[in-house]
């Protein structure tokens, strides 16, 4: 009877004390995003669009990250970019350099994911949802990778390969919250489109919460 309660409070305590003990900082705030061009829709799903050579999401969202040189993790982190309902889910995926990204197919049809982007050129070939192991790629160069499907020409996805483990995706209103940050001086950046990345120098105190609105 008491056990679940006890367990829950124990976990809460542990996470709280962890943050306090290591003196980690938090940044929260809001990125000013450009206006969405399409009519408001009920669900907040978004897709990748290119217009005049600029790649962004519609409605716009930002990837906010803390830039500095961080050591690469010992074992490569994993991430997933699925294909579902003939879309990439999620269409904008930030990862740290050295991440292995899996591309599971959740549709009942073939997909053929490929990219011609400089940081990672690959072509996974056609595969069905039953394909095992799930096709994956290691992203070891920082930069922007645009994904296409040879069969479904409207499908587009972005993988943003970053040299930091501290990143997050804002919501469609631009609000973000980065937690578990080390103290020190850094540059806070917000990627909005392939053309626009805005930045601000920040100084983080141990255990503090910094409020930053960009720009």
């Amino acid at each position: 009877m008491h056990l679940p309660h006890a367990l829950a409070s124990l976990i809460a305590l542990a996470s709280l004390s962890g943050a306090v003990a290591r003196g980690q900082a938090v940044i929260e705030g809001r990125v000013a995003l450009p206006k969405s061009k399409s009519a408001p829709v009920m669900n907040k799903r978004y897709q990748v669009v290119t217009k005049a050579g600029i790649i962004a999401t519609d409605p716009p969202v930002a990837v906010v990250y803390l830039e500095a040189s961080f050591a690469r993790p010992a074992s490569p982190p994993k991430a997933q970019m699925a294909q579902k309902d003939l879309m990439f889910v999620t269409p904008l995926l930030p990862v740290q350099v050295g991440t292995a990204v899996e591309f599971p197919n959740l549709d009942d049809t073939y997909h053929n994911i490929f990219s011609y982007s400089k940081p990672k050129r690959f072509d996974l070939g056609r595969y069905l949802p039953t394909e095992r192991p799930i096709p994956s790629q290691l992203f070891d160069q920082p930069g922007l990778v645009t994904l296409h499907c040879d069969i479904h020409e409207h499908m587009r996805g972005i993988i943003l390969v970053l040299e930091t483990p501290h990143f997050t995706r804002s919501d469609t209103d631009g609000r973000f919250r980065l937690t578990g940050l080390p103290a020190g001086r850094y540059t806070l950046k917000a990627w909005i489109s392939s053309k626009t990345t805005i930045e601000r120098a920040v100084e983080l105190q141990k255990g503090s919460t910094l409020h930053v609105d960009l720009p």
Partner: protein
Amino acid sequence: MAMMLVVMGITAVALYFAERSVASDVQRSLRDEFQSEISYLLGVHEALRAALTERCRVLAKSVRIRAALEESDVEDLYAVATVELRDVLHTKDEPDDETGIHTLRARFFRFVDAHGAVIPPPREPGAAAGEEWETRLAPTGGARAEQQIGYVRATDAEGREVIHEVIATPIVKTDTGEIIGAIVLGFKPVALDGKHASSELKSGLWLEGLLHLPTLADATRTAIGSEVARAISNVSRRTRRNVTVPLDGMPHLIFAQPLNPDSQFPRAYHVCFYSLADALARQRKVQWQILGSAALLLLGGLIASHFVSVGFSAPVERLAVDSAKNLAQRERAEAALVLTEKRYRSIFENAVEGIFLLTPEGRFLSANPALARICGYDSPAQLIAEVSDPAHQLYVKPERFEEFIRCLATEGTVSGFEAEAMRKDGRRIWLSQNGRAVRDTGEGTLTLECTIDDISERKQAGDALLVVNAELEKALDDLKQTQQQIIQQERLRALGQMASGIAHDFNNALVPILGFAELLQLNSAILDDRPTALKYLEIIQTAAQDASSVVARLREFYRSRDHHEKFSAIDLTRLIEQAVSLTRPRWKDQAQAGGATIEVRTELAPIPAIAGDESALREVLTNLVFNAVDAMPGGGTITLRTHQLGGSAVIEVADTGTGMSDEVRQRCLEPFFSTKGDRGTGLGLSMVFGIIQRHSGMIDIRSEPGRGTTFVITLPFAQSSVTTHAGPEPAEAMRSLRVLVVEDEPQVRELLAASLGADGHRVELAAHGIDGLKRFLDGTFDLVLTDKAMPGMSGDQLASAIKQIAPKMPIILLTGFGQFLNPEDYPDVNVVAPKPISIPALREAIATALRAA
């Protein structure tokens, strides 16, 4: 003296006319010959070029090329494209022959960016920068949606001037319609002076005021430049005056043909030079012959007049007194006779065709020089002397000659008789022979008058044509294969998109159901207002029926419509009013939420009923209204109009929205063509089109960007054979029945009981097959209504069991798979009815079952 003057005058006039007619004949035949040659060559050119442009269009649609162009990395772009274009590019190890197949391969390719600048390919480090001509490969004036054909002057590796034929195809992003660049493929221009053409034809390209014709010396080229320019300006002004220029000391006729009239590239023209040497020689020869015969004639005339004046001066003087005019006339007649005889002789001697006379046994009586020349003999005399047996001496197959003689003897005339002959020097030639058997009226002897034509060249040209034909057929095969691949790819895509298409239509059907249901829930006042509430419920019911027909339509994806499909008579006015109220949540409430005000107007004329599938036509109208709403993001007016036109009803759905471009208008009925990005499936209008076609109707789209779109649908009126749907049949028509209902779903069972009870039937319920059979044995029934899929004993098994006990018992089988079942597979069941079943359908099923049993 006067006589001599008369003779000379006649001669001069005859000479003048003879010369005139010969000269114009020669020119006319030359022009015909020339034009037929040119039009044949241009036809070949057209076909090759159509193949090339189609190839480029397919390439520009490649997902990979588009993806590579979207990345701004030049090195990768060209690397990727080289792989994608491997079937199109000319490779070094292929033989560089001059056949048509070779010209189907590109010499090079370049990309053009969205601003219309050529993207230079990556160079090897240390290599020279690109040539100047490479920057001229893009059409001027920025990106355009159409393919452009151009000609670019360049220099090859050896520094020689070459011309590239380039085809620039825009690369368009399908979702936004944005032109992101173009791919330019460079080909070798199709040569008009290939080996098939006659040696007298020279052809080159006229580009930016300069002539490209490598076989011509530079000095000559400059010399004739202004004349060629004049010929070009004649073409652009559409005057048909011929221009001639001296070339190698010989006059040549110029013929120019625009190559890319509607292109943004500089204009280029095909220029052909046709030598007049042969024609002039022919004309001069004829002139000399005429002059010669005239001189002879004149001499004869002078001698005759002299003789007359000396020998018969006295009688002549008397005659002159008597009938000076008469004599002059006779003189003139005699002179004309001589002239005619000479002229015939001249034709015989100088004809291009071989002319000869044969005995019925096939020996030569006489022959003209042309025949001797064709057969390889020096003179007609030699031919006649040496050839005693033409069948064996001249013909490859002697029996052909014998057949010719036999035909002449029996038929009287023969024409176009083709045979292979052997010349004196052993060379084989093809002849076309014409002949006529002539019986001399005096002696009754038979003579065969024959002419022959050397058609070897024509035969060869025919063979060459066959080769070109084979090449074109191969090119066509290639194209067909490519097309097959595209169709295959399209099918794969369709498979993926079908699911979302059905979801789309289902959602459309759900909009009124959810909307009105919500309205009824939220606004309890409406529930008390009985007529309004009933109207809303009716709309919900109609929409739900449509949703179930969407599911039924799944079948249409793999099976064509049944032929015995029943159309009923439909009142268009009612249908349109239904469609307007069905779509109201979308054009009124949703549009208002988005800040737009949309007004829907109806202008409905009273018109007779049409024959059709009511739910399908309702779908057509709702689809068109939804499209109109989508086309008017800022609000506007939708007008639905009907009127009568001959034997058809015309429905117009007009909006005041954004309208469509010509290209969109032409393609909007294609499946999966959408301008709505992810919001549309591209299936709506293609389904509309399919439905209208099924109704033997027509659809016409009038649209102008910025002005709105009007869909005009024409449907034929109902014929008398159409079953009139007079609404539900009165329940009184049916007597009260004792019905056994076997159904495992409690709700469905209750619904059936309620429906049947409301019609005055007495109902007994059973929850499964065995229960049903037990109740059937215990009671007395007029009808059994059973579900198909039930645990234990299925509906059809129950039906078999009942039919063994009571073979005449009417049985109705209800099934959710009604559309997919074949009634013939269930011999013990009288009616197979789909589930869910409406009350009218249930009544009809009962009536049918009673009749059938």
